[in-house]
């Protein structure tokens, strides 16, 4: 369960001032910048937008369809998170797949909450899903079996339908890490390809150090990103990248070295596209857990921050969760807490033209986890019931109504490259 949104499950109250919004609404200025530079982003709307309504011909518009997997022998789950979606542009891939996690409220109160993952394949049916995007059907053969596995993303493998998926074991497993076994600390890569001997498919563990490891993103090249915990009492998170070199059986892991000027205390990597661009979030020392989104793109680290839609334009706690081939970033942000009793709900954002736009499905909070190369977004919104159930969704855009556009020619400055030649003086444009 991610750090920013863990509190979203409990005790949220409806924000009375929010109107129900099914389509994207409003625009906020994105700050992708060095600490010293202007907070305005390239392509930002002039002035401060005090109106949260949809901006014609600017904000992308999405149609949301709820999704609940129909699983054999499993009653309809209370909660569904759609965690990832791959793309349909690999020659070997004939249909899109989504990943998700489901769980029931009853199990959450026990000492060992149970999560289950699923992978579902797009079909040609159009009802009740959005026109032009068939409702996915769960594919048990592609899904690691067992409880306490949190699958976050899957790639397009070279030989469809054997898409690799990545994730981690939830914190309530028991056994030690090993192939086919579950542990509270393992990152996992799941290969559904049956073994030639007819044995079970493979779960590969990814552990960095002796603390917990979690994987969140993977690409066509099977490069994974995530984070692991390190340090005294495993107190600090470190974003990293992992892959297997072509003719080696030993995977390699490399940390993301965010710029020293950011005073990073914890770093998390959540998404990677097929080009190798990575997004995530970090917290700074003394920041009280306030999250700042970041992106890595060809040597360059830059911040991604949503600003408050007021005249002050203060930064909001932001997580960048996914990025597609066009460089469109999606994620979540939080409005500031207005009183000690109410935790603000998360909000989704989708970039278009380098500017984030407020995108919510529902009124109680939205988490956007990922976006694929067809600009389909996935995530969940928070229901209005007592349990604040997670309601998974698939969001599609229509070019006629406004699909997101990639970022404009870069005018941001790299905050750093993480290499030993890096210094702030070298990075001015």
């Amino acid at each position, binding site marked *: 369960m991610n750090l920013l949104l863990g509190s979203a499950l409990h005790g949220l109250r409806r924000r009375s001032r929010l109107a129900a919004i099914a389509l994207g609404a409003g625009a906020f200025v994105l700050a992708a910048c060095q600490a010293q530079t202007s907070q305005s982003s390239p392509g930002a709307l002039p002035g401060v937008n005090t109106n949260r309504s949809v901006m014609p011909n600017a904000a992308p518009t999405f149609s949301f369809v709820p999704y609940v997997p129909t699983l054999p022998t499993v009653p309809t789950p209370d909660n569904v998170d759609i965690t990832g979606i791959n793309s349909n542009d690999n020659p070997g891939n004939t249909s899109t797949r989504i990943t998700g996690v489901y769980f029931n409220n009853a199990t959450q109160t026990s000492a060992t909450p149970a999560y289950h993952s699923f992978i579902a394949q797009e079909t040609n049916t159009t009802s009740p899903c959005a026109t032009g995007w068939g409702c996915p059907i769960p594919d048990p053969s592609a899904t690691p079996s067992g409880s306490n596995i949190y699958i976050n993303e899957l790639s397009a493998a070279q030989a469809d339908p054997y898409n690799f998926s990545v994730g981690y074991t939830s914190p309530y497993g028991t056994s030690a890490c090993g192939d086919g076994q579950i542990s509270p600390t393992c990152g996992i890569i799941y290969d559904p390809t049956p073994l030639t001997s007819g044995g079970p498919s493979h779960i590969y563990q990814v552990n960095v150090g002796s603390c917990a490891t979690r994987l969140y993103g993977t690409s066509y090249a099977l490069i994974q990103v995530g984070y692991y915990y390190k340090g005294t009492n495993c107190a600090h998170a470190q974003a990293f990248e992992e892959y*297997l070199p072509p003719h080696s059986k030993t995977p390699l892991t490399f940390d993301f070295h965010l710029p020293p000027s950011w005073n990073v205390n914890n770093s998390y990597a959540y998404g990677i596209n097929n080009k190798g661009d990575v997004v995530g979030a970090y917290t700074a020392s003394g920041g009280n857990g306030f999250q700042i989104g970041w992106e890595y793109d060809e040597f360059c680290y830059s911040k991604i921050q949503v600003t408050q839609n007021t005249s002050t334009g203060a930064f909001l706690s932001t997580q960048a969760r996914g990025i597609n081939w066009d460089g469109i970033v999606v994620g979540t942000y939080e409005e500031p807490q207005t009183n000690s009793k109410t935790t603000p709900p998360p909000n989704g954002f989708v970039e278009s033209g380098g500017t984030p736009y407020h995108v919510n499905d529902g009124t109680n909070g939205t988490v956007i986890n990922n976006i694929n190369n067809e600009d389909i977004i996935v995530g969940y919104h928070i229901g209005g019931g007592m349990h604040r159930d997670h309601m998974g969704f698939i969001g599609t855009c229509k070019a006629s109504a406004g699909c997101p556009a990639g970022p404009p020619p870069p005018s941001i400055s790299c905050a750093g490259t993480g290499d030993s*030649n890096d210094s702030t003086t070298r990075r001015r444009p």
Partner: protein
Amino acid sequence: MRYSLLAFSSRKLFLIGSVVAVAASLCSTSIRSGASPLSHHAMRRASTSSWHYEKVDYPGGTSTEVTGINNLSGSNGPEIVGHYVSKGTGSNTFYSSFYASGPYTARTLPSADFTDASYPNVKSFKNGDLNGTQMNAITTQASPTALPILAGEVADPGSQGGNWSVVYNQGLWSLVKNPDSLGGGRDVALYGINTSDIAVGYYTKHGTTNSTAYYVAPPEINQDITFPATISSPIASIAYGINNLGDMVGTVEVSSGWESWYALCKNSSCPTKTGSTSGSDFNPSLYCWGVLKNSSSSVFRTTAYAINDGPDSGGTITREVAGSYIDGSGITHGFVVPVTRTQTSVCGGGTAFQNIDEPNANGVTVVRGVNDVGDVAGYYIDSSNGTHGFVATPTGAAERRRRR
């Protein structure tokens, strides 16, 4: 008013004499630097006219090429990058890249000094052609323990087809898109990179087969390299090398064939890091330009692969360009040649070629890299048609290092 030396005290005479001596030394320095840059460099080159060669073969590889060398000093420097073909057939045979650190005192580098740096999940063969990663350039990290930064190309990454530019930043891989958005990522390659992470290479524009030289600066600033009027009607071009000062080398095809060019930056602001992602903002007037000519005044059949930072002597700067050329007998020689830029930004040199021929080569020696102390790296083909990498050190290297 007349002065007589006899009127000064001995202390004053000593002080005057010291000042005069210092002034004289400064003057003599100025005179030396004011001499013809070519003759100045020729004087230095005469003391390094022979080379010490070390063979480089990747352990288990059947064919090894060294494609770049950096300036890392100390007991572990310099570092080299290259690629090899592994033994075996079929899926076991493909290009990989490695970087290795010195010192190159052994005839063959120990296997422990090599590190594989190949893009993950790349097929060995595609449609019968050899597939894989070829890294072509390596920068110099300020920290000797830092992992390297490499630039090169990879074929069909993630089954996306085509040839892609790729950079390796201390373990992190990034594909570099073709600046021509319609061309996708295909038919691009990077051949050089400097300590500002600015890389050079070529890409192919959509609907054409001609290559266009370009540079890419993070993040995704792409600029076509355009040529001055002195290089008329370029048909195609490739940029092969860039040093840390922004000077570049490469090749260009004109009506009479391919020739090698060099561009020396006139100030500290080239290449620029601003501009668009698909750029026509390159300003050739920021450079002085020259074309390499061998002893027979022929400009062709040379390929300039690399350029170092070189020494600056007063108002004239000197760089060394390295590459290969084919002589009238069809023999391929490696070479280094000095090029210069005067204080008035006039390019010169490019004619005093020094051949580099690996002693075991059978007609082919190619130099792909040169560092600031004159070490070169490349590959040769022996009498058994085996391809081997090599590093060559000028025999006056110790003296040159002290001078620096």
